[in-house]
Each structure stands twice: as structure tokens, then as C-alpha cells.
């Protein structure tokens, strides 16, 4: 058990520190890199819970795709961060108020939280209901059989959001020359070339 405890505190410690560094690092690229480290340690914690599928999906989706896009945007932005920080102090009071409200809500929620009976058992053996199946099969069973409609609805909402994002950002610019590959390949030498025999000293 001591090794598990050690691994847990290692992952959790690095996760907390790197999450702190995300918001305190001066350089935004460093922030994103710490975010990646935080994702990675969260994946480690998932593995310790026995949820290896979710752990790897977290790495593939968040580290492999989302954070790469963040890094892209942050690297390309040309912002002078010392300028941005100049007026930051004037927003501290309102930030503190919002933070206090959220903290109070969290505390109140936690105080009145009702736990499922037998939750110790669930924590000890999260996939007890799917004995003999591995992680991936158990998740598939839940998503594609038991909760198929909820899952499809979530997919539909994402689809609508994607179409919305494309519609909002798409604009047709005038005067842009584009390569139409099918047109190029459909060109026929007979249509575009004209062979002329030119006798000397006459011109075309």
C-alpha cells in the first residue's frame, strides 16, 4: 500500500503545484506547458483509480489536441504582458467578491451533500457491477446501451455547437485565388493548346 500512497501523493502534489503555476507563470507559453503537466498527472490519478481508458482518453484529447491548439494560439499572439498587467490590480476587489460568493456556494453545497448508501463499496471497487469486464467494455456498455439517448443528445449538442462555430467564423473574402484541383485535372490538351505551323519570315 505504501507504494500506492507514495504514487498518489506524488501525482497529486505535482498536479496541485503545476495547476498553481498555470495561473502564476509570467510567460503564457510556460502556463500552457504547466497545464499539460497538470493533465498528465490527472491521467496518472485516473490510472490509480483503475480507470485506464479515461486516463488515456484524457491524454489523447486534452494533451494531444486541446493543449496543442492552446499552445498554437498563445505562441502566435503578440501581446506585451507587462502592459496587460498594469491595470490588473484595480480588478482585485471584484475578483475577491466573486471568489467569495463561489466559495460560500461550494461550502454550503458540501455541507448539505447526501452520499449514496454504500459509497465505500463503490470507491473500493468502482466497476463491481461489471465484474469480469474490462474498463473499455464497461464504459461501452454504459454509454452505448444504458444511456444511449443521453449520449446521442450530447453528441447532437456538440454537433450544433460545431456548426455554429463554423458559421460564425466563416467569411468569404473577395479576390482570393484558390486552386481547384478537379478543374486542373479535367483540363484537356486539345481544349487549351493550339498547334500552329509557322513558315519562316511570315509570323503568326
Amino acid at each position: 500500500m505504501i507504494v500506492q500512497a507514495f504514487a498518489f501523493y506524488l501525482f497529486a502534489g505535482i498536479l496541485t503545484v503545476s495547476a498553481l503555476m498555470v495561473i502564476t507563470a509570467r510567460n503564457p507559453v510556460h502556463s500552457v506547458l504547466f497545464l499539460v503537466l497538470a493533465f498528465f498527472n490527472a491521467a496518472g490519478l485516473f490510472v490509480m483509480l483503475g480507470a485506464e481508458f479515461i486516463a488515456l482518453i484524457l491524454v489523447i484529447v486534452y494533451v494531444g489536441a486541446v493543449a496543442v491548439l492552446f499552445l498554437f494560439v498563445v505562441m502566435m499572439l503578440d501581446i506585451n504582458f507587462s502592459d496587460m498587467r498594469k491595470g490588473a490590480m484595480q480588478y482585485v476587489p471584484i475578483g475577491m467578491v466573486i471568489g467569495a460568493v463561489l466559495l460560500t456556494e461550494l461550502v454550503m453545497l458540501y455541507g448539505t451533500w447526501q452520499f449514496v448508501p454504500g459509497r465505500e463499496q463503490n470507491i473500493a471497487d468502482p466497476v463491481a457491477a461489471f465484474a469480469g469486464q474490462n474498463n473499455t467494455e464497461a464504459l461501452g456498455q454504459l454509454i452505448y446501451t444504458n444511456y444511449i439517448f443521453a449520449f446521442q443528445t450530447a453528441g447532437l449538442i456538440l454537433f450544433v455547437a460545431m456548426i455554429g462555430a463554423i458559421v460564425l467564423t466563416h467569411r468569404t473574402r473577395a479576390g482570393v485565388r484558390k486552386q481547384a484541383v478537379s478543374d486542373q485535372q479535367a483540363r484537356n490538351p486539345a481544349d487549351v493548346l493550339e498547334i500552329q505551323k509557322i513558315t519562316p519570315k511570315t509570323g503568326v
Partner: protein
Amino acid sequence: MIELWNTYGIWTAWTLLYIVLIVGGVMFSVAYLTYAERKVLGGMQRRQGPMTVGPFGLLQPIADGIKLFSKETIIPSQAHRVVFLLAPMMLFALSLVAWAVIPFDKGWVLANINVGILYLFAISSMGVYGIIMAGWASNSRYAFLGGLRSASQMVSYEVSMGLIIVCVLLCTGSLNMQEIVLAPRPIWMQVLLFPMFIVFLVSILAETNRTPFDLPEGESEITGGFMVEYSAMTYALFFLGEYANMILMSAMAVILFLGGWLPLPLLGFLTFVPGIVWFALKTAGVLFFFLWSRATLPRFRYDQLMRLGWKIFLPLTLAWVVIVSGTLLSLDALPGQKEKANLLAPVERSVESLIEGGEEILRAIESVGDEIVGDEAVDEE
């Protein structure tokens, strides 16, 4: 303490031994892959390739390694030091970490985890960080351009690679690497997966930044891309990482499509040959394809590269996922399927639940109606 040693110590010692063996093997292969590349390129261009150091030039990779070790590491004064040094280490470490789940033979695998192929995919999708960090930390325009090119290229081709892996997984029914190799594959399934094998081969060329997709390095336009500021050991780490990634991707292609350590079909009588030899031979075959395409093809233009990834491979692989799953379902060949599939079952279930929901609504309306009628009756009285 003794107990701790008995539970974990021996296990750790064995694991360390395996890790040293695997890393040593990979490094040895990388060294001789560079030699093979120069020899193959030489042969295809009617030259001899390296031939002065050792017999047939066989010691050339070792000489190259010693040369790189003994050079001076230069860090540009404008570079972000920590990230600059972290980038090559990360790329190199990731290219080695991925080997943990590769089965070299039946049972010859360091970590036989349930989600092996996902692990491999996750690690290979992280490889882009080393390059993008190098491009940014060098604080040089060429390096930055190379890093951006490489990152967008790898992200684009990863999408179609993921879908190809899904196609294979549909046929094998497991995410475990050994079970993927051992899953039965009738001829029709091989035929069905063959187009995906071709797309996969092209995608791994793009994923490892090899010709004809080597725009991130593009020595004639951006003088070496993200590696332009690196020298000596930091450069060597990039180099080793890239070649280890090439071998890794070839091994992945072998495991997904070419039957891993199993002997080739029609050569079943050669089962006495150890599995690792088959595995190595098949991987070498795919690697030869890498070198061959380098000697043969000119470089793509960048917009053509993106067009190929997003407009051709992505729709094709997406369609193939549908085709493969439809074929498997209609032939009752889904892995792990015990009874004949009832294709209408989901429809029946949804109709049933709709009817149930409708009945419930009707009951609710009726009860509300009863209440209203009841109230009115009371009023009339």
C-alpha cells in the same frame, strides 16, 4: 523493509533489466537504421554509401555517434534556456517510452495493459510537444516556422490515424496489443482493411516528418526547421528520437496490419523461427518503404499536404469506419458476438420506450383531467 523488497524490489529489478534490454535494442536499431538509410539511398542513386569505417562501413554509425558526443553544445543567447533543453529530451524520452507496450513475441511485452493501442496513440500524439517547444524556445524565425508546420501537420494526420486504428479495433475487438495480433482475420477482413493499410503507411510518413512530407525540416526553404539552432548532443537527441519514432510507427503498422510476430501466410511451416525474428523482418520491410519513398518522391507543397490530410484521408477513413462496422454487423462477425445480431433491436427498443413514454403522458393527462373534472364537479355542487 524486507517485505517491501520482496513485493516490489525484485519486480523493479526485473523491469529495469527489461527496460535496459528494450532501450538498448531500440538504440542499436536506430544506429543501423541510419546506416541502412545511407546504404539504400546510395544504392538507389548508384553510389556506394558509407564504406570506409570498418568492413562495408559497418562502424560508421558508431563513429557518427562519437563525433556528436564530442562536439560542443551551443545554446543561443536569446533562447529560452529551460524549454530549449527540455524539448529534445522530451522528444527522445517519448520515443522510447512508447516501446513499453509493443509485443515483440507472444508474451514478450513489458507492460501488457488492456488499453495498449490507446497508450501508443497517446504517446505518439505527445511527440508534437518536443517539436513545438523547440521551435518556440529557439527564438529564431526558421525554427518557429518549422515548429508551426510540424505541429499542424502532425495534428492533421493524427485524426485519420485514429480513425484507421478504430477500423482495426472494430475487427479485433480489443485494445490490447497482443490480442490485436492474435485476433482471427479471415481473408475478406484483410481485403477490407487493405485500403486502410495504405492510408496508414502514408499517414505515418507524415506523422514522422519523412519525405515526401518533410516540410518541417525543409532544408531548402527553412534550413532545417525546428532543429536549426541545435547542436551536438541536443541535436543528436532529436535525431535519435526521430529515427526511434520511425521504427515505432513501423512496428505499429506491423502489429495492426501485418500480424506482428506471426509467420507470414503460406509460410506456416516456418513456425520454428522465433517470433521476434518475424517481427523484426516485417518492421524492417516497412522501414524500407520509408527509405524507398525518400529516394523516390519529391516534397509536397504545404497546402497540398493539408488538403490530402483533411479533405481526402479524413473523409475516406471516416467512411471506412462506417463501412467496416456495417460489414461486420451484417456478416455477424463482430468480435465477441455470441448470438445473431438483431439489426432492428435499437429501433424496437426506441419504439418501445416511445410507446411507454406516450402512455405515461396519457396517464398524466388523464389524472390531471380527472382532477379538473373533479374540481368542476365540486364547484357545481
